[in-house]
């Protein structure tokens, strides 16, 4: 497969203007300044054939992302398309086109062969005589080979040897294995999170000590079979069972846990309140209440004594009213009899005075009663001890002390004494409250005097006695609690079995998830083994290929390094790399560290060229993008004179070279005059892309003129006409060479005289040469040989002009 014609549009540096590059020659040489699109042209060919570029695929994901979306031109023109006319091994022309249907997803492209869509070029590889290998040697391939780390260089060499797909497989497997290891499936992460908190408890259990340690690592290390054996062993002991199946073991654990849970009790209900905060306050308040009740008793006694000798307050008010109605005289307003004499009036006044005294005592009684009430309320508000122990807790406590009933019995008696005292106290408090609430009502009836006098003594005393007993019972409980608490905690601590049962039970219930982790570990190990198997196989194949390709690569290298004192000696596979050996004066040494950049450039070139011209490749062309970038002149010359003819003649390849060095291109052209050659120049670079023009071969034009000048009259006439065309091309080529740009478009179709004036302005030209060119232009003017009266010049007259132009082309370095 040879390239015959190339058309590029909107790809990489190529813009909306479609660029056509005819390639129907053995040698196609393209030169131009940096940044004018040479590498874009190389990548266009690579992309056309493979759908991607090696530069796009290189490096890790971040590096790759930088190249994302860069196949379409930056100005987003459409269609993004590269088309090539290729000469197939069947001798027929074929049209190969690749385009991007959606520039937002530039990794997806459509390939067609002769208008028919195909999935990959590989699908028609057999049609072209072999598998598809990239015939493009990009400049960054040489750079990456030179500067890469040993392991990467090994992979690159592997790729160069034809193991690219195998290397890709190994890299992809390894990368997948890494993500599978670092970011496991959610179920695995969930299980890890579930078992990690159990690990400290399991470490404290003798059977599961080892797994407890491993599960505390990050991530937890699970060896599923060993771990399940250890968990079941612990579970059997904790659950008092000899069962072997997980369900039965778990049931035994549940039963054991239930029993243990029944013995557990909430000790908070047993803890007495602080002595200082409650009991001391209770005693203080009890004393206050006692004083209040005594005061109340006194007050009641006074009231009862006074009331017995007085009228009721209502009757007195009646009398008082009567006296006011009759301030003078002795007639009673009620009976209208003269009964209110002075004696009677005095007696009534005395009684009124006594009535007022009783009222005053009543007020004092009310105040005293309120004080007594508040002290009772304050006293009973103090929660001096807990309520009666719930029956369940009582049973748990008895179970906990099943082997020491006497101790728990004594404790419970003490506990019950305070709750019994509390009950009596509460009852007495209710009686006192009721008595106080009814006292004022009862005291108005003198018939109640005796019972009130009895109650005021007995009822407060009953409460004070009950409070005293309660205080004593609580105090006793305070004294006994610390001793009992210690004994109780000792027994409860044995119930830590519950914690262990919970940890082992939870872990055992996770058996399916643990088995999932086991399977995950197995898949991971398999993935690692698959990577290792691929790597081993790759190494074996490398060794095989190095045995054959190595000699060829060295031979190619030697073509570029004749007579060097430091030479590349060969390659040797190693564990994780391919060792490159160099030698100097019989001494062997690492090549990468001792070869110069120039020599490493030669070595990289030798690798890729050998890969590209492999016998199985369907491509009969090779494209070299800036192949000599790190080479000095001697190595360059060796490449030009030793490798390019070998590629053309021995390997029958069409050679396409891209370079920024005009001299390199010129030299290749000079040394390959016998071959068909096309030379292109990247003239300029604009928004719409590069302008690429073919460089006419002045030497070839002059040779044709010389041949024509020896012919008949029509031939000589054409020879004279063509002399003028050579002058025009000479000026155009010299303009490009001296100024780096083509003639401006305004000079397209310019008269010879105008071009001679341009020649005069170019650097390093002489007036004599300008005059000589003007003379040849005048000689070749149609007026001198085509108009009537003029004859066509003879050979001897034409030859001096041919020689003059030849010398000028040579002088100004215009021969390619």
């Amino acid at each position: 497969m040879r390239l015959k014609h190339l058309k590029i549009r909107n790809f990489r540096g190529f813009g909306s203007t479609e660029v056509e590059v005819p390639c129907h020659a053995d040698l196609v040489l393209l030169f131009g300044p940096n940044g004018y699109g040479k590498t874009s042209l190389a990548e266009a060919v690579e992309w056309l054939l493979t759908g991607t570029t090696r530069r796009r695929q290189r490096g890790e994901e971040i590096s790759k992302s930088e190249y994302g979306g860069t196949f379409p031109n930056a100005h987003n023109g459409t269609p993004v398309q590269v088309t090539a006319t290729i000469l197939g091994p069947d001798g027929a022309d074929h049209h190969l086109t690749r385009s991007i249907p959606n520039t937002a997803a530039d990794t997806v492209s459509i390939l067609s062969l002769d208008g028919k869509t195909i999935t990959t070029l590989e699908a028609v590889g057999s049609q072209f005589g072999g598998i598809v290998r990239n015939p493009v040697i990009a400049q960054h391939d040489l750079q990456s080979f030179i500067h890469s780390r040993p392991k990467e260089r090994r992979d690159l060499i592997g790729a160069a040897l034809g193991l690219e797909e195998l290397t890709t497989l190994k890299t992809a497997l390894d990368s997948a294995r890494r993500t599978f290891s670092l970011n496991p499936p959610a179920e695995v992460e969930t299980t890890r999170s579930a078992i990690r908190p159990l690990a400290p408890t399991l470490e404290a259990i003798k059977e599961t000590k080892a797994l407890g340690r491993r599960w505390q690592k990050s991530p937890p290390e699970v060896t599923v079979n060993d771990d399940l054996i250890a968990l079941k062993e612990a579970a059997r002991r904790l659950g008092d069972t000899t069962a072997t199946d997980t369900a039965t073991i778990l049931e035994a654990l549940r039963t054991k846990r239930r029993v243990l849970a029944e013995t557990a009790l909430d000790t908070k209900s047993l803890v007495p309140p602080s002595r200082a905060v409650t009991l001391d306050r209770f005693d203080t308040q009890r004393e206050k209440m006692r004083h209040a009740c005594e005061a109340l008793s006194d007050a009641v006694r006074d009231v009862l004594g006074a009331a017995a000798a007085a009228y009721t307050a209502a009757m007195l008010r009646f009398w008082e009213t009567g006296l006011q109605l009759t301030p003078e005289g002795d007639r009673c307003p009620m009976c209208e009899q003269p009964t209110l004499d002075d004696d009677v009036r005095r007696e009534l006044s005395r009684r009124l005075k006594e009535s007022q005294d009783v009222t005053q005592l009543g007020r004092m009684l009310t105040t005293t009663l309120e004080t007594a009430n508040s002290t009772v309320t304050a006293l009973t508000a103090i929660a001096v001890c807990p309520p009666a122990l719930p029956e369940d807790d009582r049973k748990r406590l008895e179970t906990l002390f099943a082997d020491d009933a006497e101790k728990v019995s004594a404790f419970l008696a003490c506990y019950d004494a305070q709750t019994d005292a509390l009950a009596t106290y509460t009852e007495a408090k209710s009686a006192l409250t009721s008595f106080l609430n009814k006292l004022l009502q009862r005291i108005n009836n003198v018939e109640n005097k005796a019972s009130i006098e009895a109650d005021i003594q007995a009822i407060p005393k009953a409460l004070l006695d009950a409070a005293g007993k309660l205080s004593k019972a609580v105090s006793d409980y305070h004294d006994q609690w610390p001793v009992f608490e210690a004994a109780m905690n000792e027994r409860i601590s044995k119930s830590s079995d519950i914690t262990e049962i919970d940890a082992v039970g939870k872990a055992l219930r996770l058996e399916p998830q643990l088995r999932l982790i086991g399977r995950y570990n197995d898949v991971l190990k398999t993935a690692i083994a698959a990577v290792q198997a691929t790597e081993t196989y790759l190494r074996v194949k490398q060794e095989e290929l190095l045995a054959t390709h190595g000699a060829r690569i060295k031979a190619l290298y030697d073509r570029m390094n004749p007579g060097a004192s430091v030479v590349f000696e060969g390659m040797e596979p190693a564990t994780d790399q391919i060792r490159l050996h160099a030698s100097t004066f019989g001494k062997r040494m690492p090549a990468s560290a001792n070869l110069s950049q120039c020599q490493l450039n030669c070595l990289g070139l030798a690798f890729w060229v050998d890969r590209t011209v492999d016998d199985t490749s369907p491509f009969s062309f090779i494209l070299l993008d800036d192949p000599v970038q790190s080479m000095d002149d001697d190595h360059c010359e060796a490449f030009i004179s030793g490798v390019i003819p070998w590629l053309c003649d021995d390997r029958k390849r069409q050679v396409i070279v891209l370079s920024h060095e005009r001299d390199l291109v010129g030299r290749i052209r000079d040394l390959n005059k016998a071959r068909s050659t096309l030379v292109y120049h990247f003239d300029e670079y604009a928004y719409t892309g590069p302008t690429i023009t073919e460089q006419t071969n002045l030497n070839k034009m002059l040779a044709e003129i010389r041949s024509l000048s020896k012919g008949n009259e029509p031939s000589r006439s054409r020879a004279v006409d063509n002399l003028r065309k050579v002058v025009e091309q000479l000026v155009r080529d010299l303009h490009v060479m001296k100024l780096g740009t083509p003639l401006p478009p305004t000079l397209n179709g310019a008269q010879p005289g105008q071009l001679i004036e341009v020649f005069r302005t170019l650097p390093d030209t002489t007036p004599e040469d300008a005059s000589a060119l003007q003379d040849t232009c005048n000689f070749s003017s149609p007026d001198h040989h085509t108009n009537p009266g003029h004859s066509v010049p003879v050979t001897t007259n034409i030859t001096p002009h041919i020689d003059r132009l030849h010398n000028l082309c040579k002088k100004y370095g215009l021969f390619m």
Partner: protein
Amino acid sequence: MPDEKLLNDLIAGTEDPAIRAVIALGVRVVRDPKLGPGDYAGAIRDGLDSILKSATNATQAPQDS
């Protein structure tokens, strides 16, 4: 030597069926015309997940008792 033969020989030369299955998975992925090199690792990773999932489904589903 054609690459296809290399890959087929690699699979055929691997004795362990599990390892062979993983390598075959990788070969299928790198040969899938719909995928680019940037997708290979992700596609193989999905395949590893599927292998794990199929093994899990073959046994009793986890239950939290």
